[in-house]
Protein backbone atom coordinates (compact mmCIF):
# COMPACT_ATOMS: atom_id res chain seq x y z
CA UNK A 1 0.00 0.00 0.00
CA UNK A 2 1.69 3.19 -1.10
CA UNK A 3 0.82 6.18 0.94
CA UNK A 4 2.31 9.62 0.44
CA UNK A 5 4.65 11.06 3.00
CA UNK A 6 2.63 13.50 5.05
CA UNK A 7 5.27 16.21 5.10
CA UNK A 8 5.45 16.52 1.36
CA UNK A 9 2.28 18.23 0.21
CA UNK A 10 1.97 17.47 -3.46
CA UNK A 11 0.72 20.00 -5.94
CA UNK A 12 -3.05 20.32 -6.06
CA UNK A 13 -3.86 16.94 -4.54
CA UNK A 14 -2.15 15.10 -7.36
CA UNK A 15 -2.58 11.80 -5.57
CA UNK A 16 -6.33 12.25 -5.23
CA UNK A 17 -9.12 11.46 -7.68
CA UNK A 18 -12.55 12.99 -7.61
CA UNK A 19 -15.21 10.39 -8.50
CA UNK A 20 -18.37 11.99 -9.89
CA UNK A 21 -21.38 9.82 -10.81
CA UNK A 22 -23.08 11.65 -13.65
CA UNK A 23 -26.58 11.24 -15.02
CA UNK A 24 -28.32 13.90 -17.08
CA UNK A 25 -26.74 16.95 -15.48
CA UNK A 26 -25.63 18.70 -18.67
CA UNK A 27 -26.64 22.15 -17.42
CA UNK A 28 -24.42 22.10 -14.33
CA UNK A 29 -21.69 19.49 -14.73
CA UNK A 30 -19.36 21.79 -16.68
CA UNK A 31 -19.37 24.40 -13.94
CA UNK A 32 -18.95 21.78 -11.23
CA UNK A 33 -15.87 20.33 -12.94
CA UNK A 34 -14.37 23.74 -13.68
CA UNK A 35 -14.83 24.76 -10.05
CA UNK A 36 -13.10 21.61 -8.80
CA UNK A 37 -10.22 21.33 -11.27
CA UNK A 38 -7.91 23.95 -9.68
CA UNK A 39 -8.01 21.95 -6.45
CA UNK A 40 -8.34 18.43 -7.79
CA UNK A 41 -6.48 17.90 -11.03
CA UNK A 42 -7.79 14.35 -11.43
CA UNK A 43 -11.51 14.01 -11.97
CA UNK A 44 -13.29 10.94 -13.30
CA UNK A 45 -16.95 11.32 -14.26
CA UNK A 46 -18.91 8.11 -14.61
CA UNK A 47 -21.54 8.92 -17.20
CA UNK A 48 -24.37 6.58 -16.28
CA UNK A 49 -25.95 6.37 -19.71
CA UNK A 50 -27.02 10.01 -19.82
CA UNK A 51 -29.42 10.87 -22.61
CA UNK A 52 -28.34 14.50 -22.74
CA UNK A 53 -24.93 16.01 -23.50
CA UNK A 54 -23.59 15.49 -19.95
CA UNK A 55 -20.67 13.36 -21.05
CA UNK A 56 -19.54 15.86 -23.68
CA UNK A 57 -19.87 18.73 -21.22
CA UNK A 58 -17.81 16.91 -18.60
CA UNK A 59 -15.15 16.03 -21.13
CA UNK A 60 -15.03 19.58 -22.46
CA UNK A 61 -14.59 20.88 -18.92
CA UNK A 62 -11.54 18.66 -18.49
CA UNK A 63 -12.73 15.53 -16.71
CA UNK A 64 -12.02 11.96 -17.72
CA UNK A 65 -15.29 10.31 -18.67
CA UNK A 66 -16.05 6.63 -18.13
CA UNK A 67 -19.20 5.71 -19.98
CA UNK A 68 -21.89 3.22 -18.96
CA UNK A 69 -23.60 1.96 -22.09
CA UNK A 70 -26.91 1.83 -20.26
CA UNK A 71 -28.35 3.55 -17.22
CA UNK A 72 -27.69 1.46 -14.11
CA UNK A 73 -28.13 3.85 -11.20
CA UNK A 74 -25.95 5.98 -8.99
CA UNK A 75 -24.60 3.11 -6.93
CA UNK A 76 -23.36 1.33 -10.01
CA UNK A 77 -21.77 4.51 -11.32
CA UNK A 78 -20.05 5.09 -8.01
CA UNK A 79 -18.67 1.54 -7.98
CA UNK A 80 -17.38 1.90 -11.53
CA UNK A 81 -15.61 5.11 -10.51
CA UNK A 82 -14.11 3.43 -7.46
CA UNK A 83 -13.02 0.42 -9.55
CA UNK A 84 -11.44 2.78 -12.05
CA UNK A 85 -9.42 4.62 -9.43
CA UNK A 86 -8.33 1.42 -7.70
CA UNK A 87 -7.41 -0.59 -10.80
CA UNK A 88 -6.21 2.02 -13.28
CA UNK A 89 -4.59 4.76 -11.20
CA UNK A 90 -2.15 4.83 -8.31
CA UNK A 91 -4.16 7.37 -6.36
CA UNK A 92 -3.82 7.43 -2.59
CA UNK A 93 -7.26 8.93 -1.98
CA UNK A 94 -10.53 9.20 -3.80
CA UNK A 95 -13.31 11.66 -3.11
CA UNK A 96 -16.91 10.86 -4.03
CA UNK A 97 -18.56 14.05 -5.19
CA UNK A 98 -22.05 14.80 -6.51
CA UNK A 99 -22.51 16.11 -10.03
CA UNK A 100 -25.31 18.56 -9.25
CA UNK A 101 -23.23 21.20 -7.50
CA UNK A 102 -24.50 20.46 -3.98
CA UNK A 103 -21.03 19.98 -2.56
CA UNK A 104 -18.33 22.54 -1.85
CA UNK A 105 -14.87 21.95 -3.25
CA UNK A 106 -13.43 23.62 -0.14
CA UNK A 107 -15.13 20.97 2.03
CA UNK A 108 -13.64 18.18 -0.06
CA UNK A 109 -10.21 19.77 0.15
CA UNK A 110 -10.43 20.12 3.92
CA UNK A 111 -11.59 16.49 4.25
CA UNK A 112 -8.62 15.20 2.26
CA UNK A 113 -6.31 17.35 4.39
CA UNK A 114 -7.90 15.89 7.53
CA UNK A 115 -7.43 12.36 6.22
CA UNK A 116 -3.74 13.07 5.60
CA UNK A 117 -3.15 14.78 8.93
CA UNK A 118 -4.86 12.21 11.11
CA UNK A 119 -4.04 9.20 8.94
CA UNK A 120 -7.71 8.39 8.42
CA UNK A 121 -8.92 5.85 5.90
CA UNK A 122 -12.41 7.30 5.58
CA UNK A 123 -13.86 10.76 6.10
CA UNK A 124 -17.64 11.03 5.83
CA UNK A 125 -19.19 14.39 5.09
CA UNK A 126 -22.05 15.31 7.40
CA UNK A 127 -24.47 18.17 6.95
CA UNK A 128 -25.77 17.87 10.49
CA UNK A 129 -22.59 18.59 12.44
CA UNK A 130 -23.13 22.33 12.12
CA UNK A 131 -26.05 24.48 11.05
CA UNK A 132 -24.81 25.77 7.72
CA UNK A 133 -27.01 23.41 5.71
CA UNK A 134 -30.61 24.51 5.39
CA UNK A 135 -32.77 21.45 4.92
CA UNK A 136 -36.55 21.49 5.01
CA UNK A 137 -38.41 19.78 7.85
CA UNK A 138 -39.57 16.78 5.83
CA UNK A 139 -36.13 16.33 4.31
CA UNK A 140 -34.61 16.39 7.79
CA UNK A 141 -37.03 13.75 9.06
CA UNK A 142 -36.32 11.46 6.11
CA UNK A 143 -32.57 11.89 6.38
CA UNK A 144 -32.59 11.35 10.13
CA UNK A 145 -34.61 8.16 9.65
CA UNK A 146 -32.12 7.00 7.04
CA UNK A 147 -29.29 7.75 9.48
CA UNK A 148 -31.01 5.69 12.16
CA UNK A 149 -31.61 2.71 9.88
CA UNK A 150 -28.04 2.87 8.59
CA UNK A 151 -26.61 3.08 12.09
CA UNK A 152 -28.66 0.06 13.17
CA UNK A 153 -27.34 -2.07 10.36
CA UNK A 154 -23.75 -0.85 10.15
CA UNK A 155 -22.77 -0.39 13.76
CA UNK A 156 -21.20 2.98 12.97
CA UNK A 157 -22.50 6.08 14.72
CA UNK A 158 -22.97 8.58 11.93
CA UNK A 159 -24.90 11.82 12.04
CA UNK A 160 -25.61 11.79 8.30
CA UNK A 161 -26.07 8.82 6.01
CA UNK A 162 -27.05 9.80 2.53
CA UNK A 163 -24.31 12.34 2.01
CA UNK A 164 -22.44 11.87 -1.25
CA UNK A 165 -19.27 13.63 -0.11
CA UNK A 166 -16.74 11.11 1.23
CA UNK A 167 -12.98 10.74 1.23
CA UNK A 168 -11.81 7.14 0.93
CA UNK A 169 -8.21 6.03 1.15
CA UNK A 170 -7.00 3.49 -1.36
CA UNK A 171 -6.88 0.53 1.03
CA UNK A 172 -10.47 1.16 2.12
CA UNK A 173 -11.70 1.78 -1.43
CA UNK A 174 -10.25 -1.53 -2.58
CA UNK A 175 -12.58 -3.29 -0.14
CA UNK A 176 -15.75 -1.62 -1.37
CA UNK A 177 -17.92 -3.64 -3.72
CA UNK A 178 -21.34 -2.06 -4.13
CA UNK A 179 -24.07 -4.29 -5.48
CA UNK A 180 -26.96 -1.93 -4.79
CA UNK A 181 -27.30 -0.17 -8.10
CA UNK A 182 -29.85 2.35 -6.97
CA UNK A 183 -30.04 4.68 -3.99
CA UNK A 184 -29.59 2.04 -1.27
CA UNK A 185 -25.86 2.11 -2.04
CA UNK A 186 -25.51 5.06 0.35
CA UNK A 187 -26.13 2.74 3.29
CA UNK A 188 -24.27 -0.12 1.68
CA UNK A 189 -21.05 1.87 1.26
CA UNK A 190 -21.17 2.87 4.93
CA UNK A 191 -21.67 -0.80 5.87
CA UNK A 192 -18.75 -1.99 3.76
CA UNK A 193 -16.44 0.80 4.87
CA UNK A 194 -17.39 0.12 8.49
CA UNK A 195 -16.48 -3.55 8.08
CA UNK A 196 -12.92 -2.60 7.10
CA UNK A 197 -12.38 -1.48 10.71
CA UNK A 198 -10.15 1.29 9.40
CA UNK A 199 -10.04 4.64 11.19
CA UNK A 200 -12.78 7.05 10.14
CA UNK A 201 -14.15 10.45 11.08
CA UNK A 202 -17.04 12.67 10.17
CA UNK A 203 -16.49 16.18 8.94
CA UNK A 204 -19.04 19.01 8.84
CA UNK A 205 -19.90 19.97 5.28
CA UNK A 206 -22.24 22.46 3.73
CA UNK A 207 -24.78 20.99 1.33
CA UNK A 208 -26.22 23.61 -0.95
CA UNK A 209 -29.88 23.05 -1.79
CA UNK A 210 -30.32 24.96 -4.99
CA UNK A 211 -33.58 25.04 -6.90
CA UNK A 212 -31.86 22.76 -9.36
CA UNK A 213 -30.90 20.09 -6.83
CA UNK A 214 -34.30 20.31 -5.13
CA UNK A 215 -35.97 19.52 -8.40
CA UNK A 216 -33.92 16.35 -8.67
CA UNK A 217 -33.91 15.41 -4.99
CA UNK A 218 -35.21 12.17 -3.56
CA UNK A 219 -38.88 12.08 -2.87
CA UNK A 220 -40.46 10.68 0.25
CA UNK A 221 -41.63 7.63 -1.67
CA UNK A 222 -38.08 6.91 -2.71
CA UNK A 223 -37.15 6.17 0.89
CA UNK A 224 -39.60 3.25 0.73
CA UNK A 225 -37.63 1.90 -2.23
CA UNK A 226 -34.39 2.28 -0.34
CA UNK A 227 -35.73 0.31 2.61
CA UNK A 228 -37.04 -2.50 0.40
CA UNK A 229 -33.75 -2.64 -1.50
CA UNK A 230 -31.87 -2.97 1.76
CA UNK A 231 -34.08 -5.78 3.10
CA UNK A 232 -34.45 -7.83 -0.08
CA UNK A 233 -30.89 -7.90 -1.31
Amino acid at each position, binding site marked *: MSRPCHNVRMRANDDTWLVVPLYNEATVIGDVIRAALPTFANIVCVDDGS*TDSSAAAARAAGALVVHHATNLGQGAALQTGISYVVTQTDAAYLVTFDADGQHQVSDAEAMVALAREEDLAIVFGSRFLDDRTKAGFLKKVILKTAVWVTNQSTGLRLTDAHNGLRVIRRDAAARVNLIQNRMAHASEIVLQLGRTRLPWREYPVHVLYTEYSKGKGQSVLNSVNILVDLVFK
Partner: protein
Amino acid sequence: MEKIWIQLILLVGVAVVAVTLTRSTADARHQAVRRVLLVGFVLVAASAILYPTFLSQLARLVGVGRGTDLVLYALVIAFLSYVATMYRRMKMMDRQVTALTREIALAKVRLEQAGYPTGPTETIDSAPPPALEPAPGPTPTGTDPAERRP
Protein backbone atom coordinates in the same frame (compact mmCIF):
# COMPACT_ATOMS: atom_id res chain seq x y z
CA MET B 1 -61.66 -27.20 13.11
CA GLU B 2 -61.06 -28.61 9.65
CA LYS B 3 -60.41 -25.09 8.40
CA ILE B 4 -57.13 -25.24 10.21
CA TRP B 5 -55.70 -27.53 7.57
CA ILE B 6 -56.16 -25.17 4.64
CA GLN B 7 -54.97 -22.28 6.76
CA LEU B 8 -51.86 -24.22 7.65
CA ILE B 9 -51.19 -25.21 4.06
CA LEU B 10 -51.66 -21.66 2.76
CA LEU B 11 -49.53 -20.11 5.48
CA VAL B 12 -46.74 -22.58 4.77
CA GLY B 13 -47.02 -21.70 1.09
CA VAL B 14 -46.67 -17.99 1.81
CA ALA B 15 -43.74 -18.66 4.14
CA VAL B 16 -41.97 -20.69 1.47
CA VAL B 17 -42.43 -17.84 -1.00
CA ALA B 18 -41.05 -15.36 1.50
CA VAL B 19 -38.02 -17.53 2.18
CA THR B 20 -37.22 -18.03 -1.49
CA LEU B 21 -37.41 -14.27 -1.87
CA THR B 22 -34.80 -13.55 0.77
CA ARG B 23 -32.56 -16.60 0.66
CA SER B 24 -30.28 -17.64 -2.12
CA THR B 25 -30.58 -21.27 -3.07
CA ALA B 26 -28.45 -23.60 -5.06
CA ASP B 27 -29.64 -23.66 -8.63
CA ALA B 28 -29.73 -27.42 -9.18
CA ARG B 29 -31.79 -28.03 -6.06
CA HIS B 30 -34.13 -25.30 -7.12
CA GLN B 31 -34.68 -26.94 -10.44
CA ALA B 32 -35.31 -30.34 -8.84
CA VAL B 33 -37.98 -28.85 -6.59
CA ARG B 34 -39.61 -27.21 -9.58
CA ARG B 35 -39.72 -30.49 -11.47
CA VAL B 36 -41.23 -32.38 -8.53
CA LEU B 37 -43.88 -29.69 -8.25
CA LEU B 38 -44.57 -29.95 -11.95
CA VAL B 39 -45.13 -33.71 -11.70
CA GLY B 40 -47.46 -33.14 -8.75
CA PHE B 41 -49.35 -30.55 -10.78
CA VAL B 42 -49.79 -32.95 -13.69
CA LEU B 43 -51.06 -35.72 -11.41
CA VAL B 44 -53.57 -33.47 -9.65
CA ALA B 45 -54.74 -31.91 -12.92
CA ALA B 46 -55.21 -35.33 -14.55
CA SER B 47 -57.14 -36.75 -11.63
CA ALA B 48 -59.30 -33.64 -11.47
CA ILE B 49 -60.20 -34.16 -15.11
CA LEU B 50 -60.81 -37.89 -14.81
CA TYR B 51 -62.73 -37.72 -11.53
CA PRO B 52 -64.48 -34.35 -11.38
CA THR B 53 -65.50 -34.90 -7.78
CA PHE B 54 -61.91 -35.51 -6.72
CA LEU B 55 -61.08 -31.83 -6.21
CA SER B 56 -64.14 -31.23 -4.07
CA GLN B 57 -63.33 -34.26 -1.96
CA LEU B 58 -59.78 -33.02 -1.53
CA ALA B 59 -61.11 -29.57 -0.67
CA ARG B 60 -63.42 -30.91 1.99
CA LEU B 61 -60.55 -32.96 3.36
CA VAL B 62 -58.53 -29.84 4.13
CA GLY B 63 -61.51 -27.74 5.18
CA VAL B 64 -62.40 -25.77 2.05
CA GLY B 65 -66.01 -25.68 0.84
CA ARG B 66 -65.57 -26.28 -2.89
CA GLY B 67 -62.93 -27.60 -5.23
CA THR B 68 -62.90 -24.36 -7.21
CA ASP B 69 -62.00 -22.45 -4.07
CA LEU B 70 -59.12 -24.81 -3.50
CA VAL B 71 -57.90 -24.20 -7.03
CA LEU B 72 -58.13 -20.45 -6.45
CA TYR B 73 -56.03 -20.68 -3.30
CA ALA B 74 -53.47 -22.82 -5.02
CA LEU B 75 -53.36 -20.29 -7.83
CA VAL B 76 -52.62 -17.46 -5.42
CA ILE B 77 -49.70 -19.37 -3.94
CA ALA B 78 -48.44 -20.34 -7.38
CA PHE B 79 -48.63 -16.75 -8.55
CA LEU B 80 -46.78 -15.48 -5.49
CA SER B 81 -43.98 -17.97 -5.96
CA TYR B 82 -43.79 -17.01 -9.62
CA VAL B 83 -43.37 -13.37 -8.65
CA ALA B 84 -40.72 -14.32 -6.11
CA THR B 85 -38.64 -16.37 -8.54
CA MET B 86 -38.95 -13.75 -11.26
CA TYR B 87 -37.84 -11.06 -8.83
CA ARG B 88 -34.78 -13.08 -7.90
CA ARG B 89 -33.96 -13.80 -11.50
CA MET B 90 -34.31 -10.13 -12.43
CA LYS B 91 -31.97 -9.16 -9.62
CA MET B 92 -29.43 -11.66 -10.84
CA MET B 93 -29.67 -10.40 -14.39
CA ASP B 94 -29.33 -6.82 -13.18
CA ARG B 95 -26.09 -7.78 -11.53
CA GLN B 96 -24.82 -9.45 -14.64
CA VAL B 97 -25.70 -6.45 -16.78
CA THR B 98 -23.98 -4.18 -14.27
CA ALA B 99 -20.83 -6.27 -14.26
CA LEU B 100 -20.76 -6.36 -18.05
CA THR B 101 -21.38 -2.65 -18.42
CA ARG B 102 -18.66 -1.87 -15.90
CA GLU B 103 -16.15 -4.11 -17.63
CA ILE B 104 -16.89 -2.49 -20.97
CA ALA B 105 -16.69 1.02 -19.52
CA LEU B 106 -13.35 0.36 -17.87
CA ALA B 107 -11.92 -1.48 -20.85
CA LYS B 108 -12.93 1.36 -23.13
CA VAL B 109 -11.25 3.98 -20.98
CA ARG B 110 -8.11 1.89 -20.94
CA LEU B 111 -8.16 1.75 -24.75
CA GLU B 112 -8.79 5.47 -25.03
CA GLN B 113 -5.91 6.25 -22.74
CA ALA B 114 -3.65 4.00 -24.74
CA GLY B 115 -4.54 6.14 -27.73
CA TYR B 116 -6.82 3.74 -29.60
CA PRO B 117 -9.92 5.13 -31.25
CA THR B 118 -12.99 3.56 -29.65
CA GLY B 119 -15.74 4.96 -31.84
CA PRO B 120 -18.70 7.08 -30.86
CA THR B 121 -20.11 6.74 -27.41
CA GLU B 122 -23.56 5.26 -27.55
CA THR B 123 -26.22 4.90 -24.94
CA ILE B 124 -28.60 1.99 -25.11
CA ASP B 125 -31.75 3.75 -24.08
CA SER B 126 -34.49 1.61 -22.62
CA ALA B 127 -36.27 4.65 -21.22
CA PRO B 128 -38.56 6.76 -23.43
CA PRO B 129 -36.48 8.66 -25.97
CA PRO B 130 -35.53 12.23 -25.13
CA ALA B 131 -37.61 15.07 -26.46
CA LEU B 132 -37.00 16.08 -30.04
CA GLU B 133 -33.87 18.13 -30.23
CA PRO B 134 -31.28 18.58 -32.93
CA ALA B 135 -28.95 15.62 -33.04
CA PRO B 136 -25.75 16.67 -31.32
CA GLY B 137 -23.69 14.98 -34.03
CA PRO B 138 -21.07 12.42 -33.21
CA THR B 139 -20.17 12.76 -29.58
CA PRO B 140 -16.62 13.94 -29.17
CA THR B 141 -15.27 10.75 -27.67
CA GLY B 142 -11.89 10.65 -26.09
CA THR B 143 -10.36 9.54 -29.33
CA ASP B 144 -7.63 12.12 -28.95
CA PRO B 145 -4.70 10.60 -27.14
CA ALA B 146 -4.31 13.93 -25.37
CA GLU B 147 -6.54 12.46 -22.68
CA ARG B 148 -4.89 12.41 -19.34
CA ARG B 149 -3.20 9.27 -18.19
CA PRO B 150 -3.26 8.35 -14.57
